[in-house]
């Protein structure tokens, strides 16, 4: 049974064993070399890769700064806590049908669809499945009351932008939406899914309002997707991934909320201004003439920026698209006071009067005779008063808005002076308001004309002619300004000849220039504009409908022809109305001897005449501001004192 020990191995055995040893040694050496290459030579690279394998940085979004009125008692934009309801399949296992049935009853959602989704997540049972986004407080209460019957259902709180005044000052607020893919390349601070201010204050003060995002550094399992929850204080926290595996929070850097901004807006006044314009289209600027602080900056029709907030809802998607594509043709997204230009019409005469007086070309006693028409060469221009105004001085020319007087004045000034003084008084140049997208408008100049007609006219026709100056003298032709520019001009007339920079952010102003208009000039212009408002008997001032007994109001009307031939044609084709488009109505007003003195600019699109279409609005606003508002303010002040 036992093998015979006498049997000997063959002679070469020991040599072969030695060979095997050598093979073992060689293989071991090879393995060690390879490990040395991987672990020592390439070790650091692989260590980095191991780290990035496992570590994820999860952004914690900062709360956007609030937007207030002049103080914290008036909130224009805030963040409300939006509650999203989620369900975790693992935690409601075995009760899926009851839970979804109950949820269907409480939240009026499609329960069977939810049930299918839950079943589809069998292999990822810790995934947070959204039930309903942004549930109402009543729904939340109901869900909380029934929580014993709703295992695995929980709410995640996230801040959501809310504009408390809806359409009022909508364009000033601007809106937020998700950052675009191509923008991300330019803006390294932003990430996919971030919201960014798109217009108005939200865009202008994006860096201030945004704050700084924080982040959470977590260790994840392979293929782990961390599931974020919020604790009872609304702070984000993270415990597990979609498969219920632990998520280790390695480091946490809490976000810094954005700073609030305070605005100069007087919301009741803003609301009143928009109310006055409602039904039509137009813009109203009410500005503190001494500082440039904007108390109201209305543009109608407006839009509600809240529409953009929850743009995941189906009907809201359509609303947003309609707004962005200007589907109703009303240009709701455009702030008409700064982003739309209108021919200034007779409002321009204020600047003309200042320029001529300052240049010494006319004095308070200079008169021109108006026979109702003005001829130059073979062309003639009319005064709006067909019968003519007779002989009048600068004060009456302003009060009755005589065209002929200003034709003469314009020719005397020449185009260079008109351009110079337009720019000085803020016409045809951007005002520098702290809102994005302001347009400069246009005051034609010889250089502009040469360039503009380069393609279509010969050199002779492209030259600046005296006729062009005549046209420009009463604010017609290609001349166009924004309502805010005329308010800036108005402010200069009543604040001692200073140029203001309008602003909305309370801490962004005031920025006011040294006086650049003499007292004498201002007095004469004010006198003319006061007469325009106060002269009630025939021949009445053009702005007489803005008159309020006992107040020192000055003003200037304007009636701007809707000149562009192409515009006429467009209107004709669209609704078949013959080409007689009503003129735009202008009225600029200054309220002197009050605190604060106001510079007001009103533009009513197709308001027919400044005297009837715009001037009464100014009267309403002034009355509202100084009487009703004053009472309210003193009332509030008294409350505070008590």
């Amino acid at each position, binding site marked *: 049974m036992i093998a015979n020990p006498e049997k000997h191995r063959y002679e070469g055995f020991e040599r072969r064993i030695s060979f095997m040893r050598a093979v073992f040694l060689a*293989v*071991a050496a090879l393995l060690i070399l390879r490990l*040395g290459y991987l*672990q*020592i030579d390439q070790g650091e690279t692989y*260590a980095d890769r191991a780290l990035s*394998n496992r570590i994820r940085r999860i952004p914690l979004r900062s709360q956007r700064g609030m937007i207030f009125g002049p103080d914290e008692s008036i909130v224009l934009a805030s963040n409300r806590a939006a509650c999203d309801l989620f369900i975790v399949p693992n935690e409601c296992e075995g009760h899926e049908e009851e839970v979804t049935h109950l949820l269907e009853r409480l939240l009026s959602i499609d329960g069977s669809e939810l049930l299918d989704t839950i079943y589809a997540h069998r292999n990822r049972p810790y995934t947070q499945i959204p039930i309903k986004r942004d549930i109402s407080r009543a729904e939340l209460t109901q869900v909380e009351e029934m929580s014993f019957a709703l295992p695995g259902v929980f709410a995640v709180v996230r801040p959501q932008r809310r504009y408390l005044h809806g359409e009022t000052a909508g364009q000033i607020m601007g809106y937020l939406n998700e950052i675009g893919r191509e923008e991300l390349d330019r803006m390294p601070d932003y990430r996919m899914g971030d919201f960014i201010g798109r217009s108005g204050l939200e865009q202008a003060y994006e860096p201030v309002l945004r704050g700084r995002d924080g982040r959470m550094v977590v260790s994840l399992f392979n293929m782990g997707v961390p599931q974020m929850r919020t604790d009872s204080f609304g702070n984000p926290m993270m415990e597990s991934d979609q498969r219920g595996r632990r998520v280790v929070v390695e480091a946490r850097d809490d976000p810094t909320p954005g700073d609030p901004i305070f605005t100069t807006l007087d919301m009741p006044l803003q609301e009143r201004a928009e109310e006055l314009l409602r039904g039509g289209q137009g813009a109203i600027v009410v500005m503190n003439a001494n500082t440039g602080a904007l108390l109201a900056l209305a543009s109608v029709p407006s839009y509600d920026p809240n529409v953009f907030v929850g743009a995941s809802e189906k009907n809201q998607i359509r609303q947003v698209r309609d707004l962005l594509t200007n589907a109703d043709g009303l240009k709701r997204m455009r702030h008409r006071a700064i982003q739309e230009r209108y021919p200034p019409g007779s409002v321009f005469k204020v600047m003309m009067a200042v320029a001529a007086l300052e240049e010494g070309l006319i004095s308070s006693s200079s008169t021109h005779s108006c026979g109702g028409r003005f001829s130059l060469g073979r062309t003639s221009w009319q005064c709006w008063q067909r019968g003519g105004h007779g002989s009048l001085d600068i004060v009456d020319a302003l009060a009755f808005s005589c065209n002929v007087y200003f034709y003469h004045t314009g020719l005397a000034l020449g185009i260079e002076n008109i351009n110079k003084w337009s720019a000085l008084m803020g016409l045809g140049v951007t005002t520098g308001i702290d809102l994005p997208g302001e347009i400069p408008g246009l005051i034609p100049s010889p250089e502009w004309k040469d360039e503009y007609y380069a393609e279509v006219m010969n050199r002779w026709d492209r030259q600046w002619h005296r006729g062009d100056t005549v046209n420009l003298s009463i604010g017609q032709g290609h001349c166009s300004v924004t309502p805010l520019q005329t308010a800036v001009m108005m402010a200069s007339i009543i604040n001692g000849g200073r140029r203001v920079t309008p602003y909305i952010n309370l801490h962004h102003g005031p920025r006011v220039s040294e006086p650049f208009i003499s007292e004498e000039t201002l007095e004469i212009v004010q006198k003319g504009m006061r007469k325009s408002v106060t002269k009630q008997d025939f021949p009445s001032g053009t702005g007489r409908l803005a008159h309020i007994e006992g107040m020192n109001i000055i003003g200037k009307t304007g009636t701007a022809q809707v000149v562009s031939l192409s515009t006429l044609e467009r209107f004709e084709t669209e609704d078949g109305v013959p080409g007689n488009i009503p003129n735009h109505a202008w009225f600029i007003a200054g309220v002197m001897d009050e605190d604060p003195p106001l510079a007001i600019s009103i533009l009513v699109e197709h308001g027919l005449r400044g005297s009837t279409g715009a001037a009464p609005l100014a009267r309403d606003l002034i009355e509202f501001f100084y009487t009703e508002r004053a009472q309210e303010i003193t009332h509030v002040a008294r409350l505070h004192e008590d």
Partner: protein
Amino acid sequence: MPSVQNELLSAHIGMFDPGNLRRIDWGLAVLALALAIIGLITLYSATYGAAQSESIEEVSSLSWSASFREFFSMFFGRQLLYFLLGIAIAGIIVCTDYRILISLAPLFYVAILGLLILVLFAGHEARGGQRWLNLGIFNLQPSEFSKIVLIYMLAWYLSWLGPRITKIRYFALSFVLVAIPCALVVIQPSLSAALAMIPIVVVMLFASGCRLWHLGAIIVVGLIPLAMVGMQVRTFQEVGARAYEERSYPLGLKLKGYQIERILTFLDPERDPQDKGYQSIQMRITVGSGQMTGKGFGQGTQTHFKFLPEFHTDMIFALLAEEWGFVGATTVIGLFLAFFYRALALARACTDPAGSLLAVGCVTLLGFHAFTNIAITAGMLPVTGMPLPFLSYGGSFYLATMMCIGTLLSIHVRKRFFE
């Protein structure tokens, strides 16, 4: 050596003698024990390491018996049982005269063939291949035991054969002995287990004094194409299908991409064809990120956070390399090398041809598994399910390893009496 004295000694050392346990080769035993303990430590980390309590749910306070059960249902607990069971089996083998076991080899051989056939019909399938028999508390993988049975069978055959091995028909017959279990394992299918039988027969033939050109012819016919295929498969795994298509090999001996896909699926049935080398990349990251001294016990991130699958079985060396770094990995390779050196010294010292052949067979089995597994983990060979002796989790192979240890110690106990 007078035969009377021999008889006396034989009488002194019985067929089964627990006293043998005192006479074992302590050097070899200590090396084996060191590797086994390192294996248990590594598996402890694999079971209870940094992120192993992965579930966020609190484990409710278990009763003592429940936590006891839980302990022994985890990798570490079970492996500890295999370790103790393995020591017991090794002890029994040490006490038994290996020559009796060799003489019983044909019986074992037939028995294991029976089990291999049985498993094809009654076996449970796991991980795509790798069949096992469910024995209630223990899943028996006959393919792992067939390796050690094959060693005994070949030792029996070759020692019976003696110098006749130089004749080619006897040489060829030994391949027939291997081919039968090999074929049964291949159709399970478990290619890697079948693959491990080839070096056993080749090395044992080599040690039994066969003609080198016989062996050379076999190697040229079988191994060189195999090595070439292996190289191409590994390249494919590393660079991905597209880059592989652009490579060229001498004489146009190049496998098509889909052929390699088939081989890979055959080697690793669980493989996801879509992963484009994900596993081999993660494997290298795991090993490489260990750097010089490793991330520390239980701190391996690649493994504990599940970036590397199967890290407690075939990839256990990656965990070791990650947590203990180059130092730890080299130490383990060094321990293996020392163990094999000492076992080969034993084979040389044993004057009984059957004993030395048995020793050579055991060394080959362990050495091939150890170095192939490490080479795979280091990204030098295509990924195949090849367990690492002493370290990989898995009962059948662990017990087979312990049987090898017992056999080696048993040979040592008896080698002196033939000097």
